[in-house]
């Protein structure tokens, strides 16, 4: 899968000039064979980038092409297919259902994609150290635990690109290591590229290219 950004500038950031390393205002090409890091302070549009690539925001100038097709021309039906089969995401705000248990939150995704079995989910949860939390409603979990649930849910589908929006902000060193291992395995298995946004340096993955904003 190939994602191209042609001179994209989000409307809220209009009027700002961007340097050559920025994803904004330049022609940027992202391939699912590579890993990318977006390294920038808060308020510079990292989450906006994720939203633009995921088709939930259209308030930008320029154009984004996914496999040659402008995102503005992708129908809602095609977006839902893309989100089921091609682009996986972990949102910065996690977007879990607080009233559902951790397991139900993941099942609501796998019911749709059918790609990961309940046993696989539970064994991954075991690796993440949250196996005993799976039947607790998400609103009672700590942010770190919720973050791991969100990552598990993000991986519970086939994908060509994985978008991670500050996925480790609430995790300690040991858990970061655990999750990155699992993420790398999943990307390898899916032959997928990765795009990660981070506030500071993150050297866990091998990045083909690093962007600042």
């Amino acid at each position: 899968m190939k994602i191209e950004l042609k001179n994209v500038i989000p409307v809220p950031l209009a009027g700002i000039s961007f340097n050559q390393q920025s994803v904004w205002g330049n022609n940027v090409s992202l391939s699912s064979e590579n890993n990318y890091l977006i390294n920038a302070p808060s308020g510079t549009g990292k989450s906006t980038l994720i939203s633009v690539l995921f088709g939930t925001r259209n308030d930008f100038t320029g154009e984004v092409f996914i496999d040659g097709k402008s995102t503005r021309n992708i129908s809602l039906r095609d977006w839902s297919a893309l989100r089921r089969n091609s682009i996986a995401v972990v949102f910065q705000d996690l977007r879990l259902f607080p009233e559902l248990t951790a397991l139900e939150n993941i099942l609501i995704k796998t019911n749709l994609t059918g790609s990961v079995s309940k046993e696989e989910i539970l064994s991954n949860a075991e690796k993440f150290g949250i196996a005993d939390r799976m039947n607790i409603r998400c609103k009672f979990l700590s942010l770190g635990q919720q973050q791991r649930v969100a990552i598990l849910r993000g991986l519970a589908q086939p994908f060509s690109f994985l978008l991670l929006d500050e996925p480790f902000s609430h995790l300690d060193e040991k858990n970061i290591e655990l999750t990155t291992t699992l993420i790398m395995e999943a990307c390898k298995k899916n032959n997928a590229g990765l795009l990660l946004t981070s506030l500071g340096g993150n050297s866990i993955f091998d990045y083909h290219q690093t962007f600042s904003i």
Partner: protein
Amino acid sequence: MCGLLILLASLQAYFDFKDLLTKKTDLINPQYIIINKKVSLLNTISGSRSSFSADEIEKLRAVKNVDRVGTFTSNLFSAQAYIEKNSKMNIPGFYTDLFFESVPDEFIDVKTDQWKWKSGDDVVPVIIPADYLNLYNFGFAPSQNLPQISQRTVAAATFRLKISGKDSSAVINARIVGFSDRINSFLVPRSFLDAANRALGSTQKKETSRLIVVSSDPSSPALAKYLDENGYETSSENLKNSRLNLVLRIIMSLLVGIGGIVILLSLLGFIQYSQLMVSKSKYEIQTLIRLGYYFPKVAMRYFLSYLLLFVVIFIATIALLYLMKIKFVALMSENGFEIEGSISSAVLLYGLGIFLFLIAANAIAIYRNILLLARPG
């Protein structure tokens, strides 16, 4: 629910009253009207009869709300009725010239199995106006110091009937078998009158001077207008109620209108409610769509939960309507009105129509609201 109930109840009440006013009771609005032409001075001078031609009868048949038209047949011979004085039964002696008319049997309002005559029968059944006996009992009898007589007494007695025509005459027995409120005439079975007219008639010319009309809606303006335009007269009693009918209709229409407005308001309420529910679950809906659920599928989920609510409301409304109807029937029958005991199918159909309309409107509202959430911002 409130709106649906008011609307359906008004419709039902409308149908009930319509029933009451047009069909059920002779009291308020008989469906039988007797029509004759106005008698003018010209008729008196020229001696011509104000009779209906076959063409005029056909035209009347075609008027809106006219269901059936029956013709009056008159006797074409002279007739005298007399009773020999019978002091044992306290019946005074009696002699009078008479006329007879007949109408088709289906127009007779007297229920009796004696209303038949065939050639060779020695007793002719007669129906007289109920008013006629009243006139005698309360007008004539007191003034002449004669005894009052009951309907039963009259019906028990036979009297003699002398009918005479061109060159022959006959005496036969006759018995009063009933008293009509509807038809102000001396009625004999048509079979008898036809036979007697053939045998004794001074002329074979058949003239129809009066018509009896069955109307599903005798107070309809169309009928009244037609009668007026053609100079026909009718026992105006029948049409008196059209004003009352009109007022009732206006009230019912108002009720239906109010029901409609309440329905519209409740439709707005429902749509706002569904909007509220959708915006309350905005986070969940958007998340589902971001997980890859196609938005119509999400909308369908919401719609199905509303559908359940609607079905419950609809069934509750119909149940309540039934209860109201039962109470209403009880109330009306206490006051002497008989109305249909069940809810009319038209009302149920209207209700179903409105129900489907509400569902469709809500489905569209939900679909649009969720579409707005699915679109990229």
